[in-house]
């Protein structure tokens, strides 16, 4: 593995997501890419973030191997608190104390609504996906929801087929009108092309920044609706050597996620 300036789009996505986590954040981590982003942040600029698991674990230290699922036993041994869903989903997330929640998504729409349930009609779907797990709770209740997915146009429909995890619903004040708490909801969507945020009034997703070498036009063509672009659209700083090295050597040294080693049976 080289540590020069070469990096994959997925690595950039993980690193850009990690940068959204502030030091000191209490972070709920979902399965898949979120594991890497959460652990990378903790090993780089956010050493005093806390990693919280939906099943009931609060962890202040790095696990000794990469967890393949969030409730991997390596996340429990050496944690500070290990209990049940009420300890974490209840007394942290529902209590409004989750600074950030990291989620992976199958499709995301114009208002940041996530579908991980089905392609097509719910009652007779073309493709049935996994469902919510704790994702809907993260999306309803966390102060800063960070959504990760590899960018394909079909994964960005104007309106998702099924709202597994509420974003801003139909935009504007529809999220609060539905009963969700103020100051919660999607903060950013981070893909393999760039980083998207939400207009403060309309809550419509817009391109805030893209990766080096990615053309804005290409991003616009990769969305299922007419994407708005920030007038001051930024180019995201490429991975630093430290970020890349930490991700590859410390977070996922066996390449379980980065080289798909976990799918080898």
């Amino acid at each position: 593995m080289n540590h020069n300036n070469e990096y994959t789009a997925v690595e950039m996505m993980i690193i850009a997501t990690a940068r959204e986590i502030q030091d000191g954040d209490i972070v709920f981590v979902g399965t898949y890419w979120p594991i890497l982003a959460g652990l990378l942040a903790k090993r780089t600029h956010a050493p005093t973030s806390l990693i919280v698991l939906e099943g009931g674990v609060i962890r202040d230290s790095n696990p000794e191997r990469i967890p393949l699922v969030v409730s991997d036993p390596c996340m429990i041994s050496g944690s500070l608190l290990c209990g049940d869903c009420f300890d974490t989903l209840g007394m942290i997330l529902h209590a409004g104390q989750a600074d950030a929640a990291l989620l992976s998504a199958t499709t995301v729409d114009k208002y940041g609504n996530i579908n991980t349930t089905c392609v097509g009609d719910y009652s007779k779907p073309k493709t049935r996906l996994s469902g919510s797990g704790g994702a809907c709770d993260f999306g309803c209740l966390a102060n800063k929801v960070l959504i990760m997915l590899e960018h394909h146009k079909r994964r960005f429909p104007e309106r998702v087929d099924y709202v597994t995890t509420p974003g801003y619903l139909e935009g504007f004040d529809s999220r609060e009108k539905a009963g969700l708490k103020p100051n919660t909801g999607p903060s950013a969507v981070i893909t393999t092309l760039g980083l998207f945020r939400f207009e403060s009034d309309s809550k419509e997703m817009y391109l805030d920044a893209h990766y080096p070498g990615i053309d804005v036009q290409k991003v616009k063509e990769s969305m299922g609706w007419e994407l708005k672009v920030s007038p001051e659209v930024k180019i995201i700083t490429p991975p630093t050597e430290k970020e890349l090295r930490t991700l590859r050597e410390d977070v996922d040294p066996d390449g379980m996620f980065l080289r798909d080693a976990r799918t080898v049976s």
Partner: protein
Amino acid sequence: MSELAFKDKVVGMKQAVEEYVHDGDTVYLAGFIQGEPFAAVHEIIRQGKKDLTISTAAGTILVDQLIGSGCTKRVISSYVWNPVPTSAHAFRRAIEQDIPHHIELEEYSLFALSLAYFAGALDLPYVATKTLMGSDLAKRSGFLGDKKISIQQSPFTGETVCLIPPLKHDVGIIQVQRSDAQGNAQLWGVEGPTKYGIQSCSRIIVCTEEIVEQEIVRRDPARTIVPGFKVSAVVEEPWGSHPSYVQGIYDRDWKYFPFYDESTKTIEGFNNFVKDWIMDIRDRKEYLAKVGDERLNKLRGSSLTSNPVDYGHYDVF
């Protein structure tokens, strides 16, 4: 009544499932990535139970196997997947193509489901929450219809809230690190909503890595997750959660999950898998022999033990 509190209820898995899991039952499966009761589920499949409603916090391939084997009529869960992560193929086939037959779903978020189990265990009429609202999980219900949730205004604040009524179950199955013969079961590690899920069940089967002297339980009663008086049967079933893990006893067999993924992509593949790993195997002992000592030994791992705590001995003033 406490009649079950003082009874030695140790039986084999075959007998436990025969006596306490009935066709048509609503079955709660405890565990949360940790402690999934695979041994019990395989016995349910072997006995060909029918029309079960399977309820579990986080459905993995355990639920996939129950669906593909035709035991399952309905599923209550927050998701069904194969934690590679990838799709659970039998689940997909059932939903998309009614193979082997149609199944009905009732889906919650994990926290909403945890509250439903909590309400079930305590027999609370409902619990109000701020999660779920705005999602299609709230808008669409399955077989529970308007008994799934209810969106209301709080009489205290006028705010919009989501009411979660109780879920209860005919029988619950839990795998724990240790239990006495009376079913006082002790668990440590990630719990998910297990404590409340399992106590929302009319009958409970405790599967345990080890049956211990009751003295061990009495010396640390804070670890008891199910009191024995609620337990119908106790099954000593070491490795009962493989390929899932039991904290401090054995590791998650992560290679099993992509193997299952590959093996079950087709109906034929699934059926062969079930034949090889469930139907043609008599019991957990044979299953473990098939997994092989080499693999099992690798999963044993090393120790990190807690320090003893003192509860004190109070016999005089």
